[in-house]
């Protein structure tokens, strides 16, 4: 693999030839990447691709076999009170079932010398204040996900790292998470969110890191990835001109098909739908033609040719 260009100086998270070997298995193979501040990055790959192992190395829970990872220019383990800069959730189930949600957060806030009042703030933020006194045993998966998020937010961090946060969430929970991450990232804060399903994060992320078998397959913006799709989206709308204008404002090309039809190039149907909604244009039909984003993802992460 060619040497990666040096990471930009302001990069929040940097992986540099990150490698992890378990016996004869190469779980992560010379992974190099850099995350710019203020971005939401989707860290994608099929199950077993090495995402969690990479995150564990980033967060100082596992030692790389070779290479290095840094967060805000330092190794995670060298940070004092890292909770004030980085919030991370690796597993949705990391709670003592017999401890209340509030006490779980208090054990963490104490270790970071944060006031108990901050615990109540984050509980309100994730809408768990009413359940906080109950033992975690009785929490639904969605509540546990939010409690984990609350722990990550205790120190009001600038960087959020979440491993498969949408796993097991119902559609309403997924939407809540998406809205939350968007709100978090406005204001220059950075998010790294892993998933094995591109569609889960496609509406949220600015850029993607796709890995397979421990190797980096793609590092690009979501738009570039969408452009790679090469397909187009057929849209039917009674306000064709207005939609075309809105699309052009976002540098998205569209050709006229007929009285109510447009063919949009190089944009996902999610993006087009969002733009149309923002512009107040009603959509009657939205059909992806050719290969979809998900097809490209599956193609990129397919078993390598022998």
């Amino acid at each position, binding site marked *: 693999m060619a040497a990666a260009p040096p990471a930009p100086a302001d990069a929040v998270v940097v992986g540099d030839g990150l490698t992890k070997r378990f016996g004869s298995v190469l779980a992560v193979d010379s992974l190099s990447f850099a995350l710019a501040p203020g971005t939401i990055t989707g860290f994608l790959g099929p199950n077993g691709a090495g995402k969690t192992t990479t995150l*564990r190395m980033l*967060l*100082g*829970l*596992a*030692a790389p076999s070779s290479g290095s990872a840094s967060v805000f220019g330092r190794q*995670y*383990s*060298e*940070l004092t009170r*890292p*909770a004030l800069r*980085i919030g*991370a959730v*690796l*597993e949705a*189930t*990391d*709670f*003592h*079932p*017999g*401890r*209340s949600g509030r*006490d*779980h957060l*208090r*054990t*963490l806030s*104490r*270790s*970071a*010398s944060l006031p108990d009042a901050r615990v109540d703030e984050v509980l309100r933020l994730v809408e768990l204040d009413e359940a906080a006194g109950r033992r975690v045993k009785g929490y639904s998966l969605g509540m546990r996900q939010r409690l984990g998020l609350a*722990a990550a937010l205790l120190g009001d961090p600038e960087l959020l790292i979440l491993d498969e946060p949408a796993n097991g969430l119902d559609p309403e929970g997924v939407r809540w998470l998406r809205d939350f991450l968007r709100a978090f990232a406005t204001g220059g804060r950075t998010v790294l969110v892993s998933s094995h399903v591109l569609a889960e994060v496609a509406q949220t992320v600015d850029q993607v890191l796709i890995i397979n078998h421990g190797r980096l397959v793609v590092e690009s913006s979501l738009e570039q990835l969408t452009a790679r799709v090469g397909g187009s989206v057929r849209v039917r709308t009674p306000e064709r001109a207005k939609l075309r204008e809105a699309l052009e404002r976002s540098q998205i090309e569209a050709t006229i098909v007929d009285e109510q039809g447009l063919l949009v190039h190089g944009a996902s149907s999610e993006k087009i739908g969002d733009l149309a909604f923002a512009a107040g244009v009603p959509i009657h039909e939205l059909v992806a033609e050719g290969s979809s984003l998900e097809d490209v993802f599956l193609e990129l992460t397919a078993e390598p040719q022998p």
Partner: protein
Amino acid sequence: MTAQVRAELLKIRSTRTTIGIVLGMIALILLFSLLSGLLTQAQSLTSTEDQRGLLGVGSLAGVFSALAGIMLVTSEYRFGTIRPTFLFTPKRSRVVGAKLAAGLLAGLVFGVVGEGLGFAIGYASLSGRGVPYALSGGQTSLLLFGTVAGVALWGALGVGIGMVVRNQVGAIIGLLAWGFVAENLLFAFVPSVGRFAPTHASDALMGLTTDHLLPAAAGGAALVAWTVAFGLAAVALAARRDVN
């Protein structure tokens, strides 16, 4: 460091497991001190060693403080809370050090409660049955302080054992099998070695004078040495091992 100790103490206080351990300790000490205080024949309660056995029944609290120490570490691995713990405090030696301190403090409370209860019941049954109190002031102080100190050290030793073993069931079974079976066999067959082992060192620390036991100060030193050895092993292993 103080912040981390406060966090660890809250972990101990905030689960029902701890309440269960404390209640179990109180029940067992009540049972043993009442049984031996009321059912033992009066002439078997007259010697200083007889009375140390009766009045020092609170040393049973050591099993429970060791369990609390083991739980403080192994439940973190069992339920995965070790991940957020290390994410908040990536200096693992600080986490282990705080757990050792918290185990010692919790053990101190266990010791005061357990030996307070055991001594009170034992003393009441002696005076209720008209058996004259045989221990001198110095022997009584050694019994009280030695027992409490031993129980406290077992709390920290439990943390060390828990961090070395990590598996909850394995650590608990290991503790009980060693303390109640293996070490007694060792002491019975090779007392010159067995007397340095931790439960017999605690017996010596509380002033018991059974054949082959170490003197009290040496017993205390041996128990401290075990605690330090497991503590150092815990620190070294925690720093080296990846967290899944």
